[in-house]
């Protein structure tokens, strides 16, 4: 809905602007305050591949064009409910990963990241996998005169009853992610049938992979806030930093997911 609203706003603004041949967008020089670098941790464990991948970086100044400052000397430990710990080593690309690891649905895991002697800890619960029943498709006429007809797709799945479930839909068309972020919760829809659209067209000849990703609550909450803050400009909310599940003022999140996938050649 937010995306649709945004589209409508854009039409209204640009429609009026074009009509008056008056509105314009331009890049400006604007002096910005800088702040001390902060630690960013993006940690995602995947039940399908029994692996965990972690990226630890420091924030840059806004106009700094260099790549993110990666932290390669962090000490990272993953702990399960029983108190078993495993260290996650740095890999050749400067991030941290480990495979295989034993991830059990419904169990709580704790991740500790130590950077320059400061500890950042996050905790989350591994989600339960939910089967993707299928993808419904409808052939649509072209958007514009002279264009190609396109296929509108809908994910279809049943929510697991008596569980708090959270979902992300991710679609690859010809190996490229398409559509905006799509996150759903089963709040007040426990055990219901979900039919949710892909907010991007697919054309004949495309190869599409549809992923229904079951995610933990921490990831869901983080991305809902991230979505809101990315939607700036006209119709945007007051800017803020999305709150992840790490303590000590670290940015980012620690999440666990598993997915079901269907691939189509259209």
């Amino acid at each position, binding site marked *: 809905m937010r995306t649709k609203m945004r589209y409508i706003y854009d039409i209204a603004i640009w429609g009026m602007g074009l*009509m008056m041949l008056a509105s314009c967008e331009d890049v400006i020089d604007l002096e910005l305050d800088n702040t001390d670098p902060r630690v960013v941790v993006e940690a995602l464990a995947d039940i399908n591949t029994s692996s965990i991948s972690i990226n630890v970086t420091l924030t840059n100044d806004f106009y700094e064009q260099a790549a993110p400052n990666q932290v390669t000397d962090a000490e990272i430990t993953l702990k399960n409910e029983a108190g078993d710990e495993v260290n996650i080593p740095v890999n050749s690309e400067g991030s941290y990963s480990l495979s295989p690891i034993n991830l059990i649905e419904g169990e709580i895991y704790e991740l500790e990241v130590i950077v320059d002697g400061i500890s950042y800890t996050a905790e989350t619960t591994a989600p339960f996998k939910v089967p993707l029943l299928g993808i419904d498709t409808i052939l649509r006429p072209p958007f514009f005169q002279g264009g190609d007809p396109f296929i509108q797709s809908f994910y279809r799945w049943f929510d697991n009853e008596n569980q708090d479930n959270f979902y992300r839909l991710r679609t690859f068309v010809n190996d490229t992610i398409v559509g905006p972020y799509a996150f759903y919760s089963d709040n007040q829809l426990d055990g219901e049938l979900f039919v949710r659209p892909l907010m991007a067209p697919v054309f004949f000849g495309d190869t599409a992979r549809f992923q229904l990703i079951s995610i933990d609550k921490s990831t869901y909450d983080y991305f809902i806030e991230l979505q809101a803050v990315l939607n700036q400009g006209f119709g945007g909310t007051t800017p803020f930093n999305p709150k992840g599940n790490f303590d000590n003022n670290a940015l980012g999140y620690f999440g666990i997911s598993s997915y079901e996938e269907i691939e189509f050649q259209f």
Partner: protein
Amino acid sequence: MYGNASELFVESFHSSITFNVVLTNKLNFMRKIFFIFLVACSFIQLHAQEEYTLSGYLKDASTGEELLYATVAVKGTTIGANTNLYGFYSLTLPAGTYDIIYSYIGYQSKTEQVILDKNITLDVEIDTEANQLDEIVVTADAEEDENIRNTEVSVVTLDVAKSTKIPVLLGEKDVFKTLQLLPGVASNSEGGSGFFVRGGATDQNLVLLDEAPVYNASHLLGFFSVFNSDALKDVKLYKGGIPAQYGGRASSVMDIRMKNGNMREWQASGGIGLISSRATIEGPIVKDKGSIIVSGRRTYADVVGRLFTDALDGTSLFFYDLNAKANYKVTDKDRIYISSYFGRDALGIENFGFDWGNQTFTSRWNRTINEKLFVNTSVIYSDYNYGFDISAGEIEIDLSAGIFDYTLKQDFNYYPNPNNKVSFGWISNLHRFKPVNFVFNNTEDDNIEFQNALESGLYAGNEQKINSRLSLNYGLRFSIFNNIGPYTEKVYDDENNVIEETSYEEFDFYHTYTGLEPRLSSTYLLNEKSSIKFSYNRNFQYLQLLENSNSGSPTDVWIPSSPFVAPTIADQVAIGFFRNFNNNTYRFSTELYYKTLQNTVDYEDGAEIFGNSDLEAELIFGEGRAAGAEILLEKTKGKLTGWVSYTLSRVRNRADEINNGDWYSARQDRTHDLSIVAIYELTPKINFSGSWVYYTGDAVTFPAGKYFIDGTLVNLYTERNADRLPDYHRLDLGFTWIMKDSKKFYSDLNVSVYNAYNRKNAFTITFDENDAGQTEATRLALFGTIPSITWNFRF
């Protein structure tokens, strides 16, 4: 949870005994106050021997329209009165012969000799200055000095006719935009009709159209107000010193009255512009007994837009308004009015439609009970609603939400003597809040639960002339707000999960707030041409608007006060100095104000407002304060007229959850706000106008760094609203040529240029990556130089 306000003024009435005792005490207190008013007024009467009352209506001679707030003065004395909101006046004097001067700004004053040896009813008609003969020049000093003498502090009365001479965006005359050129009133965004009053948020302005509240006074995402100037008679904005008869908003009251319609002859008028046209027809139902007016306006931006671009094919983008009003004098003492407004916006693309709008209906009965007592009884309906319509193949989805008001009120004016004008009355307003209603393939969500609330008020006030120098206007309002079932009240934990639910049956009054709202304004005349004024008012606001975005949206949500949401309480003091110069050619005023706000409502970062049934869990509460100095210098006579307006202000907010609990600048914190308006009458048929606006850029939050999540650039923010948009300034120019001006036909051509020097004022600045992966700041400037042309006519 409720903050300090709850400790002082808010009772949680789960115990009916406590409720009854407290409420009874407060009602008794109000009764005592009211009794004191009447006794005081009666006491004054006892001293008057053989007094008689002159009463009646003051009207426009050509149309029969009543003139509001006009002056009725006894020649050679300082005794006088003003007409009320319906044009009625009453003046009680000792028996004798008097010359009574009737005057009103823009009209020739008229003197009537009255032999007052009995109660007399006298309706008087006066002519506009436009109709006066050149050799007759009457200066209505009494009316011109009204700004010095009256007890109104922080009040703006807009001359609707004059406001049409000021150049505006797309030539669409708009009273809101004229008000934004005055001190203490600021536009909420480029080209927007929303406004901030003395640092208050946009939802803290009570906008009334013929007494009906208008919840969303904007068209086309805020670029135009819903008020068609052709249908308006009077616009009054109370920035402070709000009389006791008004309540329900923390910062201001905008009281807009529609025209009644010409009582003498049928008349049509209208205008044809580049993106909109309007037409009005008015005339007598029965000459001098009743009249009717119908006024409509429609934009065709989408149609014009399609001429320029194919991108708008298949889209709709328009709004329309319809104002209608009829009145009829049933007897010499009774008159009824029925007025209505209906307006709608529509935006859409092929399979997605979005529309929203207000409608109001007001029926009023004026009765002159006797020469000294006037009563108006009103029944009012108002709603604001919006809806989405989405179709995708076999799927049809409709979403709708809104607020619906049903109001009953009575207002009494009692004129015991020339030194006192007593007002008292009551109002009861049933609010119904419809949350987002989801209809899937024509199957409605059965769980939809309206929220109901009853907002009531009881008030009494007196405008009293203490002596020839000191006048007071004091009053007290008692407001009460009841949440009414059926409703399911929820209690949330720290993670916003519902941990407890309580269900209330239909008509259960499950929670109550009450408030005592003292109001005072006073004027002390230093001499005939200058005065100092003071005001204090306390206002309770029981409805809050949760804004979806930083620029306002039709889907912004109105929510009622509830056990979780305490009412906002505003206290404001203002002191002012008023001075007229050079035979009232120049008017100068300056005011200082300080305002505090308790229980302001905001929402948590990232809160989903649209369609969220647990919205209350995402709210946070804070406080606010605003202080400022306002200066206004007007030139009211001569070929060159206009004004210079300047406001110096500071607006700060605080909430525990924002900025580590420190005070921060509100978005509308604009340190400097300057407007210069000039209208030059080159000949009686040609005039030029211009306005220049400058203000400090809005307080905003810019990034202080960046990082990447999921391969996406995310900006890093530090302090809320610690940065500023670039300062805003703009010059608008206008030219009006009166092509024909006879009794039978009038027409003029208005050409205006918005943003004449093409200043690129930032509407938004976004911070993102470009195609080359470099981060940059991008400014969106909505309106460059925009010429417009409008042809207006009347016959």
